[in-house]
């Protein structure tokens, strides 16, 4: 079974008196363990599609089936449950909780899952080890660099070992060295844990790591190509 099945998906936003169609009749399937990117210029619909896959938004027409759930048919409770149990998010601007420590930020998804304290601790420390921030556990986001913040965000997205991680322009605020660093980290997690990663990006550095590139243009799929390398 495919992890993601998008069928004839259209997304319209109300705009002024009329409507604006951000996604037009999209069809994609994504399987388990893929490292895939939605690539396209600003305004091409990448974020809109990612939000629907993340059940933060719903299709206007067609279907988006994620882990067997039809996004448009889920109740608010069910979509919260899907996000809580199976999805991880990484954002361009990190979106860490500023007054909480690195440890607490990473622990938050586990609190929602109501896991026992001992288990939480083990999982948080392991996630911090993945991103190389074990020694920053007690720091707070304002004391960290941008690269470190994004690594905390990766740890937070990965700590519950979700099936699917959605990353929207994760390198947009980072320099080249940090971009490569976090991409290598995500690549390793994809390889070791078989987590599926879906990116939205127009950054060449990110594109270089992708194993499949889905090009979006004006809300349509322009090209969908699998990269054949080592």
């Amino acid at each position, binding site marked *: 079974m495919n992890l993601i099945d998008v069928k004839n998906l259209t997304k319209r936003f109300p705009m002024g008196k009329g409507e604006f169609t951000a996604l037009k009749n999209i069809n994609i399937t994504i399987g388990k363990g893929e490292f895939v990117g939605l690539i396209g210029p600003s305004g091409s619909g990448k974020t809109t599609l990612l939000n629907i896959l993340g059940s*933060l938004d719903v299709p206007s027409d067609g279907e988006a089936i994620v882990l067997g759930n039809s996004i448009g048919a889920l109740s608010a409770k069910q979509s919260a449950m899907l996000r809580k149990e199976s999805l991880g998010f990484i954002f361009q601007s990190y979106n860490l909780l500023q007054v909480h420590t690195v440890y607490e930020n990473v622990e938050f998804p586990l609190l929602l899952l109501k896991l026992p304290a001992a288990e939480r601790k083990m999982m948080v420390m392991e996630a911090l080890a993945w991103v190389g921030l074990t020694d920053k556990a007690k720091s707070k986001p304002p004391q960290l660099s941008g690269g470190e913040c994004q690594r905390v965000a990766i740890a937070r997205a990965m700590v519950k070992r979700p099936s699917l991680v959605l990353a929207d322009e994760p390198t947009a605020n980072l320099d080249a060295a940090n971009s490569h660093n976090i991409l290598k980290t995500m690549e390793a997690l994809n390889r070791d844990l078989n987590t599926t990663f879906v990116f939205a990006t127009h950054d060449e550095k990110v594109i270089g790591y992708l194993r499949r590139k889905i090009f979006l243009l004006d809300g349509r799929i322009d090209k969908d190509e699998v990269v054949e390398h080592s």
Partner: protein
Amino acid sequence: MIKFLVKGLLRDKSRSQMPIIVVAIGVMLTVFIHAYINGFMGDTIELNARFSHGHLKVMTKGYADNMSQTPNDLALLDSDSLLSSLQREYPTVAWVTRIQFGGLVDAPDSTGETRAQGPAMGMGIDFLSPASSEVERLNIPKSLVRGRLIQNAGEALISNLFAEKLGVLPGDVVTLIGSTMNGSMSMYNFTIVGTIAFGAEALDRGALIVDIEDARYALDMQNAAGEVLGFLEGGFYSDDDAIAIAQRFNALHADSSSEYAPVMKSLSQQGNMGSYVSLLNTWTGIISSIFVLAMALVLWNAGLLGSLRRYGEFGVRLAMGEEKGHVYRTLIYESVVIGVIGTAIGTAIGLFFALLLQVYGIDISGMMEGAAMMMPTVIKARITPADYYLGLIPGLVSTVVGSMLAGVGIYRRQTAKLFKELEA
């Protein structure tokens, strides 16, 4: 989870400390202003009650018609039996007889010639009978500036200001020139034994206080009195209670059309006191509600802004899979905690300042010079039971309602939009 939220609340000063301070200040001002207005308005009424109007006053119909002139030719003739019947019929009210009179005080020099003269506002009160509460009611011991209180017949107290104007000292003898009940002129000598300052400009200009029996001699009013004053239980004026008692009394005497028939009036039914009482009540109400409302708006807004600022955080929490209802409830719980703590602190501080003002007062006599109205020259707050819970309206209710409204956005907006505000 609770621990996580508490940590966030404690660490984020803009989420805890700031709103608590804002709520506390708002509540403090509300409580203090309310106690202050109550004190000022209530004091003015009580001052007028104690010195001239009583909470209730019984007079003859003729006297009542010209009350401002204190026409003692229309005095109550058998005042002692009237007094005892009032005491019997209305035992919860404290009844006292008084004579108010005008006259000229003449201070002679050593040869007996007039040295100085001045118009007096005389008051005959029950000074000498052992059960009398009048000395305390008029706060005379504390108002004494020089000399001593009246201990014997023929003695008088005079306002300190008046004494200075006349150049008399305790021990001097002055002559009261007035008119008897029957309209003829009367002259009566009093020994000044002390001078007093009441702290009310209108009284301190020309007060002359004597025992009521002396006043009766001086004005030829044997067994008569101009007025019988009643003071309600508890010491505070209640317009509804006073009017009810007056109505009951007047119903018994309604059939008599004689000028000498007794009539009872509540403080609010005397002269312009009625409009004053209703003015005071209206203004106490208006000012208090404006203040409560203004504070409510401020705190509501603070609650609203504080929550709007956190849409980004809510967006993240929702993305992590927290349910909307849970995010919303935690927001409300937080605002309840903030509201309760802020209200408690604000009420405590507000009551503390109100208590200071209730005990010590602020002397504003400088501003009251020449005031025709009898108003207290010391402003005091008066803490009423309402002050203990009034702060809850702006402090708790508004803060929580503000957060509730702000929180509606969590439901109404699409989750994806909460992020938009974050990713500016």
